[in-house]
């Protein structure tokens, strides 16, 4: 039963994220938008570029989707409503999303096109910027929960959500999470208008649907992680646990997508400089601060 609920909420969540994404990029809220786009893409010719690395070209989008789906396996929507409660859940989330990078490199390299290739390698540079800012805030969350299990992480926030307990970590994790899901202003690998779609540029038809779907699930996954690690997961008054999870996850996704559109796209070099010169020292300071807090004010 819980499997069915999880799959349904996954489908629903992905659809809403797709609607939100279209709303953010076109400024028009159309509930049937994703269906129309999918039908249009299905009717499109499946173009195979000449001299492509066929294996990478085909595997890239599928790997993106699989990595994003796997990372959702450790997200609890309610007590007991989780695909798999791993003892290393918080680490597993990272491990699964590390393969987003591999998928992007494959999808960028595969079609033998300049835009795609630049986009794919750009994402590698982006990862070098954001990776530490994902791992270090997760460390402090695990320090407070004294566990890497996502269920334990949520229950550790019963007294006070982590957004209040470690706001610095929250800010860093949201920043890095947006870069990880390459939503604007961090959409360097697919930069529309600058790289003509980047990694997406050479994909048409059904392959493009898989790529877009993978990206929507990735955005959903990152929003879920923000909710589980910092916004108290399913915790909340009056409403049932799963409702709180859904409301929080979709609100975070909406804020990420709509807020990100307001900002100019960041340059790769600027992103790297910010992350390494400012972000990592702040993340280290956060580990130090939370370490003291956990010892002195164990809430």
């Amino acid at each position: 039963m819980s499997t069915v609920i999880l799959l349904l909420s996954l489908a629903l969540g992905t659809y809403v994220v797709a609607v939100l994404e279209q709303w953010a990029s076109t400024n028009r809220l159309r509930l049937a938008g994703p269906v129309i786009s999918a039908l249009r893409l299905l009717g499109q010719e499946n173009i195979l570029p000449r001299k492509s690395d066929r294996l990478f070209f085909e595997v890239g989008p599928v790997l993106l989707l699989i990595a994003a789906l796997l990372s959702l396996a450790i997200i609890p929507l309610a007590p007991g409503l989780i695909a798999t409660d791993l003892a290393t859940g918080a680490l597993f989330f990272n491990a699964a999303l590390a393969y987003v990078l591999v998928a992007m490199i494959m999808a960028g390299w595969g079609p033998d096109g300049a835009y795609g290739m630049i986009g794919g390698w750009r994402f590698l540079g982006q990862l070098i910027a954001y990776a530490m800012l994902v791992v270090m805030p997760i460390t402090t969350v695990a320090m407070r929960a004294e566990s890497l299990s996502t269920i334990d992480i949520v229950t550790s926030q019963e007294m006070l959500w982590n957004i209040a307990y470690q706001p610095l970590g929250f800010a860093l994790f949201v920043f890095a999470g947006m870069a990880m899901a390459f939503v604007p202003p961090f959409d360097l690998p697919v930069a529309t208008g600058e790289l003509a779609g980047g990694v997406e540029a050479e994909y048409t038809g059904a392959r493009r649907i898989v790529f877009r779907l993978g990206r929507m699930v990735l955005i959903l996954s990152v929003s879920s992680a923000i909710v589980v690690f910092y916004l108290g997961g399913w915790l909340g008054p009056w409403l049932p646990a799963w409702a709180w999870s859904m409301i929080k996850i979709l609100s975070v996704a909406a804020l990420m997508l709509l807020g990100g559109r307001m900002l100019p796209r960041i340059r790769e070099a600027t992103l790297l400089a910010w992350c390494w010169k400012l972000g990592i020292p702040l993340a280290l300071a956060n580990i130090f601060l939370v370490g003291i807090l956990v010892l002195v004010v164990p809430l």
Partner: protein
Amino acid sequence: MSVQLVFLLAFGLAAVWFGIVVFRTHSMVRSALALLFSQTAIGAMFLVMQTEFLGVLQIMMMATEMSIMAIFMVMFMMDPGGLGEMDMKHQRKLSLGAGILAFAGATALALLADWGPIATEIPDAGEQVRLLGFELLGRSMLIFESAGLTILTAMIAATAMAVQAANRPEPAAPDRGPDRGKQHGH
């Protein structure tokens, strides 16, 4: 044969196969990613052996490491896409000999070493993470901290070498005749 052993063998064979693919392909990117999937298969073997933390860690670390290796191979090799059919195998006799020797050595070590009593009770994954934490901050602290410090030193040294100092003069451009020099008037 238990299900566990079947999976262990399957992932082990996958690791070996991807290792062979590294040298069979012509493309640098394919070669790097084949090495990645070989390492991922080893991570999966850790998972089958119920060492969850090590398995997940291996799977995570290798993805970024091998991708970074791929871009360096693309940057420095003359035929990154493999369209020129470049051969990955060099010094065949030497490498064949070294490979056989290393394989024999590792096998002998595995068979002959005294591994002590084999664990019958496996602590659950959460307990393993806890024990690993105590190990890293206890007996093995010196080793891990010195390794970490060494890597940090190497990182700083590499960055220092890569950064062009602001006041260091640019290396003189090779002389390409009088006209060229006038165009670049710096």
